Every structure is written in C-alpha cells, then in structure tokens.
C-alpha cells in the first residue's frame, strides 16, 4: 500500500472508531509482543476524542460550569461528530461552537447557554486579537471644531459588539468567580461592548443609542452622519452632547486607534 493509502485508512479508522467495524487499518498493522493491534490502535482513537473534547472544555470552561458536565459532555460529543478539524492550530477548533449551538434544534432553545458560549468565545478572541496602539484623546482636541462632522474613526481589532440575553455578562462573571449566578433573562436583551485593554479582555454594557453610534462609527460613518442618525432615532436636543460623550468614553476605553477626515 502507498503512504497515501495507509494515511487515508488510518484517518478514516480514527474518525470512525473501532466499534464502527470500519477500522480497515487494522489489516495493515502488526501485533506487538505484549498485545494485539486493536488495543494499540485504540490509543489513537481514544486520544483523538479526548483531545478534541479537551480543546472545547478549555475554551468553554465557564459554559461547562453553567451547563453541568453531563449536558456539556453531550454537547461536545455532538460537536466532535460534526466532522474533523480543519484548523492546523487547536486554538480555533472550538470556535464554531456558539454557531453550532444556535443552529442545533436541541441547544437553540437555551438562549442563555448559547449567548454564554458567544460571550466566552468573544473574550477569547479579544484576548489574542491583533495588536494596535490606542489613540490618546489629545488627537481629538487637535482637530478643528469645524472638522468634527467629518471625523471618521478606526477601532482596536479586539472590539466586538455582542447582543445577548439580559444578564449573560453578569452570569459569566459570577460563574468565573465561583459565586452564585443569577439567571439570565432570555426574553430581554443587553448589548455588550467587549475589547482588550492592558492585555486583558474587558467589557461593559452599552445602551441602545451608544450601540447604534458605535456600529455606525465602526462602519466608517462620519461623526456628523452618526449625529444625524441619532437625532432621527431620538429627536433629542441634548444629542450632540451625548454623542460627544460617547466619543470621549471610547477614547477613555482605549478603543479608538485612528481618526481621519472623510472626504
């Protein structure tokens, strides 16, 4: 048999498992002085499942805590069964878990668990996303007041805006501190702004108007356009002040990395 054929058989047999009766690779293996080839090949089969399960448990430790070992174990088993990893780096093997839960008839109905998974993945992504220095607020002061409406912003690559069931972020902190966890409310929503600051993921809840402003700003809309949009939504006279307040807060958070003027 060629190297390719052996590797194809080996892989198929690991993925199918010994109990499947599809372990054709056994015909190509030898017994050892102490034991038979099936016992030895089982080391690879078991290690495969254990390793993938460990990737998921490590990346979703808080979700596991929330769901309990039994339910989490069955979720992981289903996730592994969706197919082999196509990532070279184990870091990304489990990253489809929130999506898998949302699309699964069984897990979709537990909105708190789905959103907790999304939040936990968001923190992990913020943790090792691309580096970029934050811009100091002085840069804003240096812009001419007449130019403000034309200002556009760039944000730190770690920034994410997540729409979650109300209380999921609080649930996460309680679980990761080992404290009593209040249930999240699946019928109400919260929006969490998440980013990395001083090498650690941080987050805060944001209100509907800041959410809107931030989404538009991240889509490279100018400050003037954002104000117009907020005005349209709210019909509020203190609007300019509030929009300027968001902006100041974004600088204080350290999430703005660049400003320029739209043409």
């Amino acid at each position, binding site marked *: *048999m*060629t*190297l*390719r054929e*052996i*590797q*194809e058989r*080996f*892989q198929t047999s*690991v*993925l199918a498992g010994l109990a499947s009766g599809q372990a054709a690779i056994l*015909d*190509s*293996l*030898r017994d*050892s*002085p*102490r*034991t038979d*080839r099936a*016992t*030895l*090949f089982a*080391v*690879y089969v078991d*290690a*495969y499942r254990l*390793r*993938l399960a460990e*990737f998921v448990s490590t990346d979703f430790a808080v979700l596991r805590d929330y769901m309990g070992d039994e339910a989490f174990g069955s979720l992981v088993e289903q996730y592994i069964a969706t*197919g*082999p*990893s*196509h*990532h*070279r*780096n*184990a*870091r990304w*093997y489990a990253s489809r878990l929130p999506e898998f839960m949302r699309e699964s008839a069984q897990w979709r109905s537990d909105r708190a668990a789905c959103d907790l998974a999304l939040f936990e993945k968001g923190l992990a992504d913020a*943790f*090792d*996303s*691309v*580096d970029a220095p934050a811009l100091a607020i002085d840069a804003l002061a240096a812009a001419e007041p007449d130019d403000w409406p034309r200002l556009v912003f760039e944000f730190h*690559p*770690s920034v994410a805006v997540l729409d979650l069931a109300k209380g999921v972020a609080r649930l996460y902190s309680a679980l990761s501190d080992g404290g009593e966890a209040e249930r999240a409310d699946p019928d109400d929503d919260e929006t969490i702004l998440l980013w*990395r600051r001083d*090498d*650690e993921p941080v987050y805060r809840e944001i209100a509907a108007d800041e959410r809107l402003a931030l989404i538009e700003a991240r889509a490279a809309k100018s400050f003037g356009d954002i104000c117009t949009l907020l005005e349209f939504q709210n019909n509020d006279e203190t609007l300019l002040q509030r929009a300027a307040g968001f902006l100041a807060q974004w600088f204080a958070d350290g999430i703005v990395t660049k400003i320029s003027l739209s043409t």
Partner: protein
Amino acid sequence: MSIPSSLGFGLGLRSIYYPDILEHEPNVDWFEIISENYMIPGGRPLAILECIRADYPIVMHGVSMSLASSDPLDYAYLRELKSLAERIEPAWISDHLAWTVVHGANLHDLLPIPYTREALDHVVDRIRRVQDFLGRRLLVENASTYATFQDSEMEEWEFVTEMAERADCLLLLDVNNIFVSGFNHGFDAESFIESIPIARVAQLHLAGHGSYETHKIDTHDQPVCEEVWRLYERARLRFGDISAMIERDDNYPPFDELLAELEHMREIARTADDVRSRSAT
C-alpha cells in the same frame, strides 16, 4: 557539518508558569515553546514571550508541520512559522517525524508512518523543501508510536538515520519517546540511541509517560521516570554536551518541582561528563 552549540538545560515554556518565570528569573538555561501557541494574531502571550526572550534563549518546537503527510506541504503554515521565527529569533526550529493531517482534516496528533523506502524518499524531500523555505536546518524529532505497519521495510532508527543524512537535517532525540516506543514495539532503547549518528543530534527531550500493562502512552503528565533518566545518561555519554530539556504538558506540578528535575538532569550530566573525560585521557 556542525551542530548548534549547547544551550544547556531547559524547560518547556507553558503559560501556567509565566508568573514563576517573570517574577523569579529561575535558573533555567533556555526555554522551548510550542510554536503554535504563539501563532496567533497578538495580545498577551506574544508580549510575554518577547519579555522572556529578552532574558533567555528560546527554541521553537512545532506540532503541526505534518512532515510525513501525503498532503501537499502547507506553505501558509510555513510562512506563519517563519514570521514568528523572525520575531523571536529562536536558536532553532523543530518538529516531528509524523503526520497530523490528510485531505486537509487535522487529527491534532502525531501519527505514525510505515518505515518504507517510499515514505523515506517522501519525508527527505519534504524536510529539504522546508529547510530551503525557512533558510535554516530543521531539527526532526522521533515521536512516540503505538502502531507498527506490516509494510515497514526497516527499523525506526535506520529510517531516522538515513533521513537525517539524506535530508541534511538535525535530530531532536526524545529519549522518553524512544523508551515508550521501545516498550510498545519490543525494541531495545539503548541500541536505538547507540545507532544514531553523533554528528546529527542537536537536542534531547525528556518527559514522563503513562504506563499500562501492555503499553505506555506519551502523556507528559508525570515526572521523568528512572529508566528514562538512565537513557538520558546513555545519551549524554554518547552525544556529549548537547541541549536537553524536560517537557511537561499536563498535571502541572509547582514550578519548583520542575526546577528540581532540571537539577537532577544537571547532576546526571556532570557524572556522565566525568566518565567521558576520564575515558578520553
């Protein structure tokens, strides 16, 4: 051909030990990283690595080059690896005589190959191409294996020796892997070590493993066992002063216990070096 000069006695760099290393500057001569742990976009792991790199030599040890795979070489991976190397400036880069991926599906494990002429030609060619791409000699490590193939035409140590000579690569001998594979397949670990060409070995690995009645598993979750220490002594006698380190990847003990193991390794090396210098005179 010369091998890189010895870095001394090292440990695997694992995130759980960052505080011990950053706060106490322990007496470790060098650290080995798992390259993939730092093949990420940015953030704290890379910042800490650069900080530790400022004080210690680093070598890069990969687990997913899939050198023995029949899939095409993954140049996207190699490009990423090369750019990490440009940033970290490791003393060298290593990976395994194993495959992890076929048809693009990754089993995240170091899988065994038949020791055939066909596999040998294939691996030699791939190592040469990787070395050309990286612009440096690669260290290739013998993996622990649990399966042997009907088709094999030679022994592992014959394969490894010819591979190193023909690919003009260096070897990372894992003496624990030699012990584990020797137990599993019934070959003599010492003879393995004695048959490997001295001029090719640039680094040694030591680690602990799990033991069952019929086989052993390379788990890196235990202290180095007595038999593996004896093999290390044999290797030190044969290969002399080459870089050696302990891999620990699970069931992490307090950092001091790893430092004590490292001290034990130094003692064994001293004894072996005495024997070598006496027999030289």
